[in-house]
């Protein structure tokens, strides 16, 4: 059950281009996400999943309507303030090429805390704890090129959870993983949600991932066509 509204989309729509070239990536959408939810945004390619996640994670602004994060309208914030709010509230896991290749696993995780101004000791402790929780003990000093795809995704998860942000957004986190690794990753995310009380919104069109979610929002051609809570 939700503990309070974390995110509200109030008629939020996003289109690109103008005139004949206009592409409606997301039509006017209303959505409320409460703290502690474990949500899967499902739908075929081009249905608007990534756009919805970008708006929810303050990476992008709606062309019309509003996106409210903890009651603050993202459109009313300056670019800097929006970045600052994003830093405070959201952790990201992207589909692929998630990590900075010049940093080790530990440094990648620490980096997300460095930009939030955490001290060296705290960064180190949290990074170690996060990497341990995603099962990468002993691989902290490996560079991304030395890790498998699944391990890289787990580093990305560790990076997203280590700073302790209340919301983690993951865009198709299992897309490049085999089914066993994908399932293990989803179990890990759910465990973190249970343990840390974090809110997860992830996109996928993988039935296994949808199966793991507590709430599945289905998009089609830029519109929410189904919103099921288990």
């Amino acid at each position, binding site marked *: 059950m939700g503990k309070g509204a974390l995110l509200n989309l109030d008629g939020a729509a996003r289109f690109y281009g103008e005139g004949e070239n206009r592409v409606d990536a997301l039509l006017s959408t209303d959505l409320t996400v409460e703290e502690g939810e474990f949500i899967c945004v499902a739908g075929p390619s081009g249905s608007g999943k990534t756009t919805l996640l970008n708006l929810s994670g303050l*990476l*992008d602004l709606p062309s019309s309507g509003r996106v409210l994060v903890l009651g603050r309208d993202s459109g009313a914030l300056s670019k800097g303030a929006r970045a600052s709010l994003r830093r405070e509230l959201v952790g990201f896991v992207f589909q692929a*090429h998630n990590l*900075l290749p*010049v940093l080790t696993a530990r440094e990648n995780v620490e980096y997300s805390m460095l*930009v939030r101004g955490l001290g060296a000791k705290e960064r180190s402790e949290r990074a170690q704890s996060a990497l341990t929780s995603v099962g990468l003990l002993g691989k902290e000093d490996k560079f991304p090129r030395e890790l498998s795809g699944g391990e890289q995704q787990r580093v990305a998860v560790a990076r997203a959870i280590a700073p302790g942000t209340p919301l983690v957004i993951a865009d198709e986190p299992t897309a490049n993983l085999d089914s066993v690794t994908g399932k293990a990753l989803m179990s890990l995310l759910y465990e973190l949600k249970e343990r840390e009380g974090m809110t997860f919104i992830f996109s996928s069109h993988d039935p296994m991932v949808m199966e793991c979610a507590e709430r599945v929002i289905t998009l089609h051609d830029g519109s929410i066509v189904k919103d099921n809570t288990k």
Partner: protein
Amino acid sequence: MILRIALRNLLRNRRRTLYTISAVAFGLLCLIVFQALKVGLHEQMVRSTVGLDAGALQIHAKGHEANIASLLPLPEPQVVEEFLGKTSVTAYARRIKSPALLIANAKSTAVLLSGVERVREPSVTFISENMVAGDYLAPGGLLIGENLANSLGVGLGDDVALMVEGWTGAPFIRKFPVKGIYRTALATFDLGHVFMPLPQAQEFLRADGVVTELVAASEAGGELSAANEVREKLNGDDRYSIRYWGEIAPDVKQLIDLNDSTMALLIIIVYLIVAVGIVNTMSMAVYERFHEIGIQLAVGDTPRSIFLMILTESALLGLIASILGSLMGWLACLYLGKYGVDLTSLTSSNQYFAQSHILKSHLILSDLGWANLLTVTTATLAGIFPALKAVRMEVVEALNHG
């Protein structure tokens, strides 16, 4: 962390980084060597000008025209010498100069006769160091250049006739034995200048006790300030005319200024090339990393930090190239400063190489410092354009890249 990321990013494409560093380092090497050779050339030009005849500065009676020999007497030379002793002038000597005609073996040539002090003149000019035969200013004799001796067909001990217009305006002619032969690196000077001891010249010109010129030496580079000091000391006394070497030989001064301007232009061109090279490298590097920069921004990094990271990469490129270029430049200058470049075939009649035809470099530490500072600054500034391009991107646009 910024420094670590910047350094590792540079190492990602080692070949590209190496090419860029090599190009910048080579540009810097050329600049350092050209600058050091230019300084060496200018010092040689000044040394030749000062040491051949002009000295650091000359004092004449008011009304004397530069480089025109006249028997206009210098008023109270002993008073001027007292003043000179209280300035930064390191040495000085009295002279009398007159145009003359030298005749020997049915040949004649116009020369400038200089009566100079045997003891004090060598502290100011270097003719005494360039003797090839006989003695420097032996009493009763004449000191002539080797080229002149050869062209007149005379040698040591042979008599030559010298004709002058004396102090009274009457012409005088007398035979003098050649008692000394000198050779500078400037053939034209040797052909046109003859010397004898000052008292002998005064007596020959019927100008007993007359001095027409006081010539002084100073520390290298301090000629103008020495001249200004002398001007200050003689302030208000309008009987004197004081000129430093740059006024006596304005062609040398102008050529040095022209060289400096040309070098400045060369410096601008080289640094423009350095800047374009680094802009190109960094633009490529940033373009390839748009997605990563998007990740960095999404993770929470600030545009300012990304901007600094790219600038740090540029600065590191410049710094490494600077160290490499300086090291190579310093080694090249060490060699050129010791062995120089032999320009004999190009400069045998060049007045700026009167002392030697070997051009040696002189690397000034402050020049090296400036070259390094300019390289690192240019490299850093060259990073601004790609850095701005990176931070102006929207996060989503960056993430979608690649």
